[in-house]
């Protein structure tokens, strides 16, 4: 099933294992299991593992690999760190898939409250017009889907979510806003996501969540992780303020 697995360097201190060129949930489960296996059995010199939609990237320190795993012949480490790490990864890929499945972490479903529309979602009407629906229908569609978190990246805590119903897909704004408030829930093409921070942004903003997606004081610092299923739950303005109020020390 994964014969097309590719191992390639990502510069001189990382390696990417790509399981497929196509995004789908089965591939992603394999990705998460493989990443889980590496977290449980770190390779010598490995500094971290990051999973993507269809790939796993292993970051390593070549100096540490050289000093701990490669015997020196003359003045050359043998084998070279990249060859050593990619060799070990190949062995792991060749292991039966069932073995790695035991490393899959438990799937969580996270409910994200969203105050849709009005000042919280200035582009809700535009999305509704684009889809030929009422704003209420857009809210219903957006909040009845279950979204898989494929990857956390780009910004701290930012989830790349899959599964936006195509009916409410809409291209990015022609001109990005200079500042989109933290917690803004947006649509861009067939993607939906949440801005963890105030930042410039070109997404169509349909609502805002009072929940904090990233807190560096917490372990782990991001609320979401790859593999989580997200559901958006509509709340009203009172509930939004109540939630936000609760956050104050």
């Amino acid at each position, binding site marked *: 099933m994964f014969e097309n697995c590719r191992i390639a360097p990502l*510069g001189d201190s990382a390696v990417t294992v790509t399981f497929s060129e196509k995004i789908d949930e089965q591939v992603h489960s394999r990705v998460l299991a493989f990443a889980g296996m590496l977290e449980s059995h770190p390779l010598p010199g490995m500094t*971290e593992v*990051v999973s993507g939609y269809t790939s796993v990237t292993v970051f390593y320190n070549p100096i540490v690999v050289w000093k701990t795993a490669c015997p020196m012949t003359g003045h050359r480490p043998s084998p*070279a760190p*990249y060859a050593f790490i990619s060799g070990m990864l190949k062995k792991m890929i060749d292991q039966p898939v069932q073995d790695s499945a035991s490393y899959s972490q438990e799937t969580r479903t996270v409910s994200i409250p969203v105050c849709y529309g009005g000042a919280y979602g200035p582009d809700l009407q535009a999305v509704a017009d684009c889809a030929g629906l009422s704003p209420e229908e857009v809210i219903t569609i957006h909040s009845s889907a279950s979204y898989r978190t494929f990857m956390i990246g*780009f910004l*701290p805590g930012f989830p790349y979510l899959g599964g936006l119903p195509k009916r409410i897909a809409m291209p990015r704004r022609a001109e990005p806003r200079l500042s989109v408030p933290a917690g803004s829930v947006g649509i861009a093409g067939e993607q939906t996501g949440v801005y963890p921070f105030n930042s410039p942004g070109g997404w169509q903003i349909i609502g805002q969540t009072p929940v904090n997606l990233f807190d*560096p004081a917490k372990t782990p610092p991001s609320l979401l992780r790859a593999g989580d299923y997200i559901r958006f739950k509509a709340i009203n303005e009172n509930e939004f303020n109540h939630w936000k109020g609760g956050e104050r020390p």
Partner: protein
Amino acid sequence: MTITVLNPGLLTTVQDLGRPGYQKNGVSPSGAMDRWALRLANALAGNDESAACLEITLLGPSLFFNTDERIAIAGADLTPMVGRSGIPLYRPVWIKKGQTLTFGQPKQGCRAYLAFAGGIEAPVILDSRSTFLPAGFGGIDGRRLRSQDVLSIGEQPDSPQMAELFESPKTTQRFLAAPWAVDPGILPYHDPHLIHITKGNEWDLFTESAQEGLLSEPFAISTQSNRMGYRLEGPPLKMKKAVQLISAPVATGTIQVPANGRPIILLADRQTTGGYPKIAHAISADLPKLAQAKPGDRITFQLTTIADAQKRLFAQETRLDFIMARIKEKREGHR
């Protein structure tokens, strides 16, 4: 032990060796842009290599010493001074209480690392004291230094001979520099504007003329450049045909090319994922050179292999190990 910031300079931040392990949460390892210089400054000041220092960019700060401090500066020569006297780089320097360290014209390089014996005290967030500017946490409140900031420095007992020397009535100077220094021949900045690269995953998707252009033309570092990455100006790099890639993890040194054909080198505070084609990666051994290049500088790229890139890194590390051992000997008073 404290230092008061009289003037923060252009961009001065608290940095250490960064926080690997959080890219899965969207936080890049960040830390010092020139890790080699930071480690060396720390060794010269008598610190563990991971102590927090100031990363000083081009125009340096004005720092008032409320207490005697032992410091060391490595990386760029940004003309550090006490009064009208120049402070030498690449060796321990003792600065007396009541003195002000200032910086003049940048002479060479872009980023200098100022280590204080005992390290800068700042909260440890996600295993590091580094300032992560994109998300505003770490270091001093997640931001660059400002006037009136007070830096807290850790305690670090001096060796008895040096303490005696400094307090000696013969020392009328406002500072005292060690009589020895690191040999400049050992620094990793030889050929400072030649950056070695290895092929990126999407190298073959670029036209031959783009590949040749990357390797033969100089690229200027534009003013749209910072700790997140450098945007380069040069011949646009065209692809054989437009591609839409799945966003995926990237690395420090990754050279990505958006639709406009102008390459961006991702650096310390980079985003953790990207969807642009990766034409190449700058080798880790040349990251110190990149850290010392500033807007307006022109760099050229030379292609090499992963094996060669790693060999260069070993050679650099071997030299650093050697220097660290010699520094240790000096500090412990051996000949």
